[in-house]
């Protein structure tokens, strides 16, 4: 009784676990037993969604459309015509940017005709020499930040050009250059709407939560159904995926504008529009630009995944190389994507952190020095590339453009490296692999699959109840119930098992590494930079080295997941530990604690809620990666999403599976967040 009074939560937990194990032992595994598995009530839902999408695309609201090529009117569905028109617009924009960078005739064709281009040989837009793009990026880096960034940009672009990946890289870039601005504008607009209207915010917020926990693949299927396949579809999927963080950061930024600035604006007689564009948005500039940075990162993360529905570029080539198990080439392509990601990340962050300059007393030349310099540079580079025609007569004009896969390559080196590793390490790696699968993963998987549905619900809702009361119990219960009613409960359990294994290992590594690094200010700075850099890598990249080592197995996927998911755990641990107030540290020192005592008694208790938020991120990262891992073969939800992708009627399945993954993530997110918030309030740190 005394125990119950002093530690009610412990007693609750023990009771909960007792009930859980009792249920696990007593419920018989039988398909008709409702305590074992719930009936798939939602099994018909994907079909209905398919039917609805089909109706929308082919039958709903027929309109008469004039077809200029057949010179007659046709009947078509409104939605279909709208999406077609939109696709055409997006495709035109992408082609336009692409041809500025790489040259071509399609833009000219749009304004004339194929016949015109065929008759006039001169009607071809010339490709920009790579030196111009490279120099332009360097100049931008110098203007925004300084020499270091210019150097990084220069090296990165030179690498891409010299290794013969210029063309796919520019294809990827052209697609980012369209998707990112559209996402930013859309996000800015929706964020502003949510700021203005409480109702819009209440509607948007849960949608954003789901959107940010849905796996990337799930976006591809509806986009494919409505917009077809190709660069434009990839761009549209990317836009949908990249907009949510922009909305969030815009809203956050606008909310952080101090009340006094808003009142000052009102007292100066601003109209609503003046208030938004002259006061609110400029004042929230930094947060909004951080949002832009997020958008660019998301666009690159999608670059590989969008290639599933036909987006050209580095991602497509990477996928191809991986499928052919050409590890060396995949690695080079991966490095290209990483370089583009890092450079764009640094450029956009530099832009966000740059303070506005004042030009009052400058003359024209001073004011536009970078622009003028770029023009001079452009002319020089073009002349150089013309000169190059004569120097490298007959061969490749290295000053203009190095054709795809004809630059330097290190493929053979990597390939032989892989061969060497396979030869020499095979036994060791294989033993480890077997041990992990047979002694750890299989038993864990069996245990998860052996859990009766009733026991799972008791456990999860019970934890919800202990942490956040009835409300939390109902929220997580509701989220799980959706999954339980679909046909994929077993798949979801497998996803959960892989994720929880990865999260356990990641959190452990993260907390240990983070705690060690936090002991020293130089080490913590260094590890934060490493985390920052690793976080800019698109998630897909992590698969390349593990496939190199372990081949295509569950182990590879798990290791990739663990590496990827450890990043937030480390980062939040370092941040949490270093944000312990200095007065408390001093109080500890004066009490004479040693390092271990300090860590156990002062730092850990105070930093733990923040570290748990890191674990929360770890869960989301791990879930995403597990799903992506499906591409190299696992048998969880991700595999089924991939199957849906290749199915013509996959939209219903794809969406439902996406929601299953999202709801898994949201349930964990809700539990950890509620707990961490309470704890932070209790510690007076909120």
């Amino acid at each position, binding site marked *: 009784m005394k125990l119950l009074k002093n530690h009610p939560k412990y007693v609750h937990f023990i009771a909960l676990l007792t009930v859980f194990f009792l249920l696990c032992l007593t419920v018989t595994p039988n398909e008709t037993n409702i305590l074992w598995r719930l009936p798939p009530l939602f099994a018909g839902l994907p079909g209905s969604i398919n039917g609805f999408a089909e109706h929308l695309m082919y039958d709903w609201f027929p309109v008469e459309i004039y077809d200029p090529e057949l010179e007659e009117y046709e009947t078509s569905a409104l939605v279909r015509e709208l999406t077609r028109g939109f696709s055409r617009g997006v495709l035109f924009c992408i082609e336009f940017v692409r041809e500025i960078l790489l040259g071509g005739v399609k833009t000219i064709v749009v304004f004339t005709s194929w016949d015109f281009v065929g008759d006039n040989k001169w009607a071809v837009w010339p490709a920009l020499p790579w030196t111009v793009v490279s120099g332009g990026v360097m100049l931008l880096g110098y203007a925004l930040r300084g020499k270091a960034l210019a150097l990084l940009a220069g090296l990165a672009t030179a690498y891409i050009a010299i290794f013969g990946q210029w063309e796919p890289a520019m294809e990827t870039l052209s697609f980012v250059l369209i998707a990112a601005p559209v996402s930013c504008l859309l996000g800015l607009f929706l964020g502003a709407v949510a700021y203005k209207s409480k109702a819009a915010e209440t509607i948007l917020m849960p949608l954003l939560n789901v959107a940010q926990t849905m796996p990337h693949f799930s976006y591809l299927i509806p986009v494919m159904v409505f917009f077809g396949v190709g660069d434009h579809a990839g761009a549209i999927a990317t836009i949908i995926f990249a907009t949510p963080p922009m909305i969030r950061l815009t809203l956050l930024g606008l909310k952080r504008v*101090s009340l*006094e*600035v808003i*009142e*000052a604006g*009102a*007292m*100066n*007689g*601003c*109209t609503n529009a*003046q208030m938004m564009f*002259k*006061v609110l948005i*400029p*004042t929230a*500039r930094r947060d909004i630009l951080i949002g832009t940075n997020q958008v660019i990162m998301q666009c690159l993360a999608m670059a590989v995944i969008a290639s599933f529905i036909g987006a050209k570029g580095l991602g497509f080539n990477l996928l191809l190389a991986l499928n052919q198990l050409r590890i060396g080439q995949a690695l080079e392509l991966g490095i290209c994507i990483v370089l583009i990601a890092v450079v764009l990340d640094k450029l956009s962050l530099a832009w966000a952190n740059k*303070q*506005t300059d*004042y030009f*009052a*007393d400058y003359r024209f030349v001073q004011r536009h020095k970078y622009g003028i310099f770029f023009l001079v540079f452009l002319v020089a580079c073009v002349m150089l590339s013309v000169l190059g025609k004569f120097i490298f007569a007959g061969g490749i004009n290295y000053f203009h453009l190095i054709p795809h896969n004809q630059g330097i390559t290190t493929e053979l080196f990597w390939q032989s490296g892989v061969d060497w590793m396979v030869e020499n390490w095979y036994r060791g790696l294989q033993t480890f692999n077997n041990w992990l699968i047979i002694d750890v993963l299989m038993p864990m998987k069996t245990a998860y699959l052996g859990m009766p549905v009733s026991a799972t619900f008791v456990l999860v809702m019970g934890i919800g109840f202990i942490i956040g009361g009835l409300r939390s119990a109902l929220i997580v219960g509701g989220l799980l119930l959706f999954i339980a009613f679909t046909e994929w409960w077993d798949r979801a359990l497998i996803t959960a098992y892989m994720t929880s294994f990865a999260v356990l290992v990641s959190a452990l590594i993260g907390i240990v590494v983070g705690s060690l690094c936090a002991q020293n200010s130089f080490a913590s700075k260094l590890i934060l930079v490493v985390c920052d850099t690793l976080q800019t890598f698109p998630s897909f990249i992590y698969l390349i080295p593990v496939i190199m080592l372990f081949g295509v197995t569950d182990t590879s996927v798990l290791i990739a997941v663990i590496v990827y998911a450890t990043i937030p755990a480390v980062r939040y641990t370092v941040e949490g530990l270093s944000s312990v107030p200095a007065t408390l540290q001093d109080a500890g020192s004066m009490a004479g604690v040693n390092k271990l005592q300090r860590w156990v008694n002062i730092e850990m208790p105070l930093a733990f809620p923040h570290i748990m938020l890191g674990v929360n991120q770890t869960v989301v990262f791990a879930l995403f990666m597990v799903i992506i891992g499906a591409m190299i073969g696992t048998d969880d939800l991700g595999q089924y999403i991939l199957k849906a992708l290749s199915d013509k009627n996959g939209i219903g399945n794809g969406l439902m599976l996406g929601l299953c993954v999202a709801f898994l993530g949201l349930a964990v997110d809700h539990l950890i967040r509620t707990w961490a918030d309470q704890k932070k309030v209790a510690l007076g740190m909120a």
Partner: protein
Amino acid sequence: MTSQAIKNGAKPVIKCSSVYKVFGENAKKLLAKSNGRVDAKIFKDAGCVVGVNNASFEVYEGEILVVMGLSGSGKSTLLRCISRLTDTTAGDIFIDGQDLLAMTSKQLIELRRSKMGMVFQNFGLLPHKTILENIAFPLQVKGKSTDDSVKRALEMVKLVGLDGRENYFPRQLSGGQQQRVGIARSLAVEPDIWFLDEPFSALDPLIRKEMQDEFLRLQGVLNKTILFVTHDFNEALRLADRIAIMKDGVIEQLDTPANIVLCPATEYVRKFTEEVPREKVLKIESVMDPAVDASLLGPLQVSNGAIIYTVAEAILTEPKHVAVINTRGEVVGSIHSAKIISMLFGQGNATHEKV
């Protein structure tokens, strides 16, 4: 100034009658039920917070009315009701005879662009604009040409003594300098009414004193109608023509500084006045006796507007009665050193009364 203003029949620029501001969902309903008798406790139980409770007063042309109160007393809320930054729950507010609460948002914007200026506690400057751009902002918003607004803004820069810093950004200035920018911006459109919301509270004591002097200098030149909010009683005494002391949304007393010190209306107001050295606040006229026969007067004469502290030493060295004269040199009363002594050390001084 006020007493003169009222005597001269000056018209009220701001007129509030029975203004209420109640925060909370059912504020309007509750207020309608209460028949104007608002009890904060009952409202609190219903989930409402009373910000302003039945405020009625007028501010006359060229007058400085200081609203004084501790944090949470509703002083800033009152100011925001009058500038209509928050909506008033009940009551009427008239600006130059126009019904403020009936205005459309268009009229309101027009009013703010032409007649109102406001200074904020934490300056409320736009971080992405330079000093000059910040000051020119209200003019640009109004649609004035860039040339005109820059010209006017430069004048304002000079007025507040920031010449040479017009191309700085707010982040590059000290707090005092930032508030000078805030003042310049609020004056850029030449408003008739000037709202100042704790303008000097975020500044260090020395800078605060300097800014108060600056404020008085500006008002000497500009002669605006001013509503000034502060939590500093000494600041209120220094600057005010009249002071309104607020507590829990209610105006406890609204009077001239001398009257507030001499006859506090409530126990709450008296507590504020206790610590105040009266000789540094009161003028001779508020303690002088009626004029006595000329034979009793010494050669010394003091002005009726002089603060007691500044002339006390001279009066104490004069054995005879001292004549008090007004600005036209007419004798309006007399004062004796005994009065000053009792003022400084005797029963009359509340500071010592308590000991």
